[in-house]
């Protein structure tokens, strides 16, 4: 029997950790203690499992676990955090739109444009101050495939991939909470929309037109966007 010890180790992991290994994603609602258990299980992974097929998706330990750890410190006693992570990548079935033909002229024989929309992270947290925080991170990937024929009949195919990331963070303030207009506007790459009413809601959105160079940078982008809704409450 192959990989016996590693299979036994996986069987002992947290159920969400197992879902992450086999399905590359999970969706769960838990209090902070439950997420701490998952993080402890994930940190044991590298020492026990070495098979590349069962590797953790890199964004899990680099981005999602630190983000969950920060948000869990803001949960109240009865507060829960919902996380839906889909780390199968943008080429997974169901995320790619059908290819679209683009108008061409010689020497280009054909050109197609394919869009993939990958909402890889959704979070919803009931914070201890009574507000509700929602985070959405979506990668939109455009793949352009161009086929060219030169005068000698040789055919060449070129492929270009462009990625845009959309980060949206919404915070619904507690009912009748005193508001506070920030002293400065957000950075130019972040847009804020405030909806007034009995329960004020502040949405910050950003569109980043390049890939993050590291997990640290990715986390930094999410936290930077998440800052804006918190500047709109008193303190």
């Amino acid at each position, binding site marked *: 029997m192959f990989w016996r010890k590693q299979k036994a180790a996986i069987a002992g992991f947290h159920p969400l950790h197992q879902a992450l290994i086999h399905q590359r994603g999970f969706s769960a609602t838990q209090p902070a203690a439950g997420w701490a258990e998952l993080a402890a299980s994930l940190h044991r992974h590298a020492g026990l499992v070495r098979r590349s097929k069962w590797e953790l998706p890199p964004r899990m330990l680099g981005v999602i676990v630190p983000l969950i*750890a*920060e*948000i869990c*410190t*803001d949960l*109240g*006693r009865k507060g829960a955090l919902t996380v839906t992570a889909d780390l199968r990548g943008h080429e997974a079935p169901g995320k790619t739109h059908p290819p679209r033909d683009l108008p061409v002229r010689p020497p280009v024989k054909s050109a197609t444009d394919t869009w993939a929309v990958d909402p890889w992270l959704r979070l919803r947290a009931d*914070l*201890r*101050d009574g*507000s509700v*925080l929602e985070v959405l991170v979506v990668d939109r990937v455009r793949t352009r495939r161009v086929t060219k024929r030169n005068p000698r009949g040789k055919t060449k195919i070129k492929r270009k991939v462009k990625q845009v990331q959309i980060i949206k963070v919404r915070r619904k303030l507690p009912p009748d909470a005193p508001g506070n207009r*920030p*002293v*400065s506007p*957000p*950075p130019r790459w972040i847009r804020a929309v405030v909806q007034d009413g009995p329960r004020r809601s502040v949405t910050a959105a950003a569109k980043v037109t390049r890939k993050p160079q590291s997990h640290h940078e990715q986390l*930094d982008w999410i*936290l*930077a966007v*998440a*800052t*804006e809704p*918190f*500047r709109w409450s008193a*303190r």
Partner: protein
Amino acid sequence: MTPCAVTTGFFTLGKCGRMAVAGCPACGRAICADHIADGGLCPECAAARGQLGHPAAVAAQRRRAYRQRSSEQYDDTVWYTSFDTFDRSAFDPGAGASQDYLDDGDDALVDS
């Protein structure tokens, strides 16, 4: 009961509020058993000295670094100074930011 005056939270700040069992030898802040970091220090003092063996010290370091960084990104000095004021208010429990940790009711803002 002397409440633990360690700052908790990341976006929404609060005080721990559990029963304090010691004082930080560096700053004198009251700390509970869960927040005694390396050398008996409070998480903030441990983080300032680079002693990151305790999870609360790591969290304190990350929180302060995030507030400083985002304050620069947003060009909003109030964002950082309000955090600093809240953290320092542990030494003056009668004043400063809202002292949620003094409230032990069911609807209290922080866990106690």
